[in-house]
């Protein structure tokens, strides 16, 4: 199908352009006006065209936890949020630690998915931190990085082996930074945890591992990517390491720049996540890290859970929130409208940042490139409604929030994957 997207403001951070122009889509790619016959014309006047978003960190739950989400529902939700590519974490059941599971995900996504799915393989077998997973074989099958996300690699020796071996296959290690022995809690440790009588997870639980991983990366002269950073000191350590030339990159998630530990009050399990929401000073430091380029990527950490796993006593509820359908709007509302980032900077952290992490190559809104693009309305606010989420799960703390940056249409591989 040939699609003409007409009259929109095209913001393309990779090309460094921001102009009103038409986009011609044919055969899965962006093309030129020459000999173009549109089967479908989308009037995008007054709207903004941005590159398809890439999520560096999500949980699609299939195989094993399809009651929470599956590849079809998860990618449908991703497309609704403007994502054309998502990288899914390996903590499924069975764990993505062998080629069979990788191939299952790749094939299922190709046949039935609403966007491109790039699996991240486990670093160690069963994510148990004991033996390396078959990283090379999984690389051939299509993984784009390795990670034991959800269960940190406890032993420094194992982390070193994972970094050395993954590098041989041009893969980066994504580290979930958490020193478990000091992290046995349910929310950030501080005045709010004291007031709620909940066990706290101190910021240092994250920071101790951030520090270890940076030191290892520096020693080995190898890259490391730090997942979902949430504290001021973590950002500071990355900033200093980058200045020294350490090959460290990092990501944060929208909840760490929009919410604080205060959201846990009233034992609100929708605000329960790992790492936990932090105090205001950390939130400010995350924004500063995004603004000065210390933080390379904004990832969703989309973590769907069934209501039975959230509608519980705070200490028993699962960690995590869904994120696909709020990520761009939260970034746009808080960071761009908040005056901290330009739209192009926000987009870089949701497109070229993750593309670089996975070695995906350049993506531009220009002829010859794959037609992965999103039409968004940046000027009209809307109220986010969890009951309209396209995925299976409803675990979001943003129900009822007034946001800007609604996705109207998502085109991936030249096909319309979502349309409001």
């Amino acid at each position, binding site marked *: 199908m040939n699609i003409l997207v007409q009259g929109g403001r095209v913001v393309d951070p990779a090309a460094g352009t921001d102009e009103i122009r038409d986009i011609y889509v044919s055969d899965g790619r962006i093309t030129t006006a020459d000999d173009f016959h549109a089967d479908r014309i989308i009037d995008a006047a007054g709207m903004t065209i941005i590159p398809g978003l890439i999520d560096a960190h999500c949980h699609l739950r299939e195989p094993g936890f399809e009651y929470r989400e599956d590849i079809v529902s998860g990618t449908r939700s991703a497309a609704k949020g403007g994502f054309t590519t998502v990288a899914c974490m390996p903590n499924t059941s069975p764990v993505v630690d062998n080629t069979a599971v990788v191939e299952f995900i790749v094939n299922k996504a190709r046949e039935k998915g609403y966007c491109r799915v790039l699996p991240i393989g486990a670093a160690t077998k069963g994510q148990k931190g004991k033996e390396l997973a078959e990283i090379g074989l999984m690389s051939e099958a299509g993984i784009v990085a390795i990670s034991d996300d959800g269960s940190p690699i406890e032993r420094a020796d194992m982390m070193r082996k994972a970094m050395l071996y993954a590098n041989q296959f041009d893969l980066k290690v994504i580290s979930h930074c958490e020193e478990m022995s000091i992290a046995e809690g349910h929310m950030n440790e501080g005045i709010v945890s004291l007031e709620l*009588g909940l066990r706290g997870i101190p910021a240092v639980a994250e920071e101790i591992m951030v520090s270890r991983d940076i030191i290892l990366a520096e020693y080995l002269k190898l890259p490391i990517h730090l997942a979902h950073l949430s504290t001021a000191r973590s950002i500071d350590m990355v900033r200093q390491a980058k200045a020294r030339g350490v090959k460290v990159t990092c990501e944060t998630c929208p909840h760490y720049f929009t919410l604080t530990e205060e959201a846990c009050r009233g034992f609100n399990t929708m605000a329960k996540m790992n790492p936990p929401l932090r105090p205001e000073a950390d939130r400010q430091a995350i924004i500063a890290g995004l603004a000065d380029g210390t933080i390379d990527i904004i990832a969703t950490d989309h973590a769907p859970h069934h209501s039975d796993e959230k509608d519980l006593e705070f200490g028993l509820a699962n960690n995590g929130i869904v994120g696909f359908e709020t990520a761009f709007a939260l970034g746009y509302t808080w960071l761009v409208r908040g005056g901290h980032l330009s739209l192009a900077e926000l987009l870089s952290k949701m497109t070229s940042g993750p593309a670089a992490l996975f070695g995906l190559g350049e993506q531009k809104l220009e002829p010859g490139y794959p037609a992965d693009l999103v039409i968004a309305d940046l000027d009209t606010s809307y109220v986010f409604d969890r009951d309209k989420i396209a995925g299976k799960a409803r675990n979001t703390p943003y129900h009822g929030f007034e946001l800007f940056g609604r996705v109207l249409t998502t085109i991936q591989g030249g096909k319309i994957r979502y349309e409001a």
Partner: protein
Amino acid sequence: MHLSSKDLLGMKELSATEIELILNTADTMKLVLDANSKKTAHLQGKSVITLFYENSTRTRLSFEMASKFMGASSANISASGSSIKKGESLIDTAKTIDSMATDIIIMRHQQSGAPHLIASRINASVINAGDGMNEHPTQALLDMMTMRRHKGTLEGLKVAIIGDLLHSRVARSNLWGLTKMGAEVRLAGPATMVPPGLDQTPAVWCPTVQDAVSDADVVMGLRVQLERQQSGLFPSISEYARFFAIDEKTLSLAKPDALLMHPGPCNHGVEMPTAVYDSPQSVINEQVTNGVAVRMAVLYLLASRRNQA
């Protein structure tokens, strides 16, 4: 005067005026306890259920006696003898009890916030009888009642609370309640058992038990669960007793008429020696009596609020 909420979830949720209302009502209820015929009709026709997910002797019995004295129909559910063991969710259990025309559910649960979770989903009033490390409001109320009866007022009282502050819902409830009423709360115990964030509360942290007790009007020991030693929070029972017990010498640093309190059950020789427990300054048994009066007051106030609604 009525309580503003249908539930009693914690001292955090009560205003100073409401605390005063409960304490005044409890003073009246105490007259019933002291009378020959311990019977009122305040809860006639009301149904009260105790739902205990944790073991308890005195709190549960105290609530049971309180509701019986006031004529309620009452029943008890404990974690071992119900669908709880079959894995029923807390919300389902609460809704089931609520559907049996229950007026008041008294709940103890090992998870902080468990009573808050059910309170918003059911019609019955919920009384928190202890939730995790969060609160135990009726314990704080009976402690405050005891202090007030002896000292006349809570305003300006220096209250030293000693022991495992990290895990203690009694300490937290007393901290929130007493500071609301204008008392000065001093805390001491092993540094490993101090909840982080304490510096942002109105409490005064004292590095030694002696510092906390000096010139105090009230000295309160907290129960130490002896198995905490195995998780590395203190080296040994004897070392705990050496540095953190309220012994006679320490107690002598307090005001001469200072009250000695303990929520019970007490580990004699750990939190305090038996001689201190049994000393003339000890009001530990009176706390238990006042506990019944406070629970009668709370049940009465919540029930009469239901009648109004």
